[in-house]
């Protein structure tokens, strides 16, 4: 059986071209393995071999990501690759980001197995761990002797078509992706077993490690409220009657953008709720109970603040994935800021 063809991606330094002064070199190919690539030969056990190497300057990649990725993919394809290994990048930040991006593109655009290796604090990890298999390495190049066998074993497994097990089982960095499975025993039995282990002081493994939530810097307070434009948003699911944008009652994948122009109150003639996570009777009867437009208009008229921003956003915060909520928030934040809004009130149910 002919060995699998692997292409190796390296930066200018590991590719032997030069140091920082050569960080601007464009992607170029070499036949066979180069530099650290040579170390993979033994670990790949003749089942695969590095048939070519693509080298790119970290600076060029960072400044021309899309273009560089396209050029690199073309060079990889020219080798008729079966799989791609990028790095290991150890703790080099730009290199790690490039390795992650290339592996991700190989997977997404060439539909080939690809993986990388980096130190856990490399910025490339946070950027790409969800979509790319990354083997943990030490923070400097002396760790190559441990990185190579681990990366080789995994790329061979991926080439064989076998599904990879969990991160813990296979030795790659946790991608943070939850995947369903069937256990041998029902959850209730597992729970009682886990409690008894915990009570006895025996080791046990939680099936869901608690997440850490990042903190966002506190935005400075409004100084001049009398002239401030305030936006009103909700994730309580209030939408124009009929839910024209079909916002889902749970796991919303979109938000609606609507106008308050000429409207003084969120009456039940105009609005209803699309949220499936609470008893909708009260919100449907008087949507102001979730979207306090009537009171905002009163306060606006009285001069308590400058102006109610005409556009409002709504989505359903019922089982909304955090990733989706983050995306909505980013888009809304950009749009509101660009429109000159000074502050925001968000209501939730």
């Amino acid at each position: 059986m002919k060995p699998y063809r692997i292409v190796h991606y390296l930066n200018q330094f590991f590719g032997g071209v030069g140091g920082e002064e050569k960080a601007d070199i464009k992607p170029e190919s070499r036949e066979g393995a180069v530099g650290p690539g040579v170390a993979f030969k033994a670990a790949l056990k003749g089942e695969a071999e590095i048939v070519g190497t693509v080298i790119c300057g970290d600076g060029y990649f960072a400044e021309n990501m899309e273009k560089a990725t396209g050029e690199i993919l073309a060079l990889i394809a020219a080798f008729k690759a079966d799989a791609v290994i990028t790095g290991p990048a150890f703790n080099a930040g730009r290199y790690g980001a490039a390795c992650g991006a290339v592996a991700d593109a190989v997977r997404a655009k060439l539909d080939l197995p690809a993986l990388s290796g980096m130190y856990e604090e490399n910025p490339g990890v946070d950027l790409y761990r969800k979509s790319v298999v990354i083997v943990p390495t030490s923070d400097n190049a002396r760790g190559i002797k441990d990185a190579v066998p681990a990366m080789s074993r995994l790329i061979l497994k991926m080439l064989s078509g076998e599904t990879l097990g969990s991160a813990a089982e296979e030795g790659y960095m946790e991608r943070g992706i939850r995947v369903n499975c069937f256990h041998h025993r029902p959850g209730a039995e597992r729970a009682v077993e886990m409690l008894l282990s915990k009570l006895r002081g025996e080791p046990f493994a939680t099936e869901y490690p608690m997440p850490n939530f990042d903190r966002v810097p506190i935005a400075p307070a409004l100084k001049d409220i009398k002239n401030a434009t305030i936006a009103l948003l909700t994730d309580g699911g209030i939408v124009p009657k009929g839910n024209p944008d079909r916002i889902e009652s749970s796991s919303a994948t979109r938000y609606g953008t609507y106008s308050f122009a000429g409207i003084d109150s969120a009456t039940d003639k105009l609005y209803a709720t699309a949220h499936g996570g609470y008893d909708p009777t009260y919100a449907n009867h008087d949507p102001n109970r979730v979207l306090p437009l009537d009171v905002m208009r009163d306060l606006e008229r009285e001069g308590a603040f400058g102006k109610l921003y005409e556009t409002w956003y709504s989505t359903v915060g019922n089982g909304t994935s955090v990733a989706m909520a983050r995306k909505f928030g980013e888009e809304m934040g950009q749009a509101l800021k660009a429109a000159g809004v000074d502050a925001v009130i968000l209501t939730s149910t």
Partner: protein
Amino acid sequence: MVKEIERVGLPIVHICTIIPISLTVGANRIVPAIAIPHPLGDPSKTPEEEKLLRRRIVEKSLLALQTEITEQTVFND
């Protein structure tokens, strides 16, 4: 959503009932609401009383927006 909007530099108030969740997730300015199905309403009251309650919560929110804070803050009465 609250955090991403605040990240662009806009002060934002989160009016919600389950304060612990908002605190855990990391909102900075939080104003307590009345109940999940009617955060700014109370069907056990008359419409006039409800509107007054609603106004108080919104006024508290406007105050929160103008208040400099150094850590996550729940604006109780």
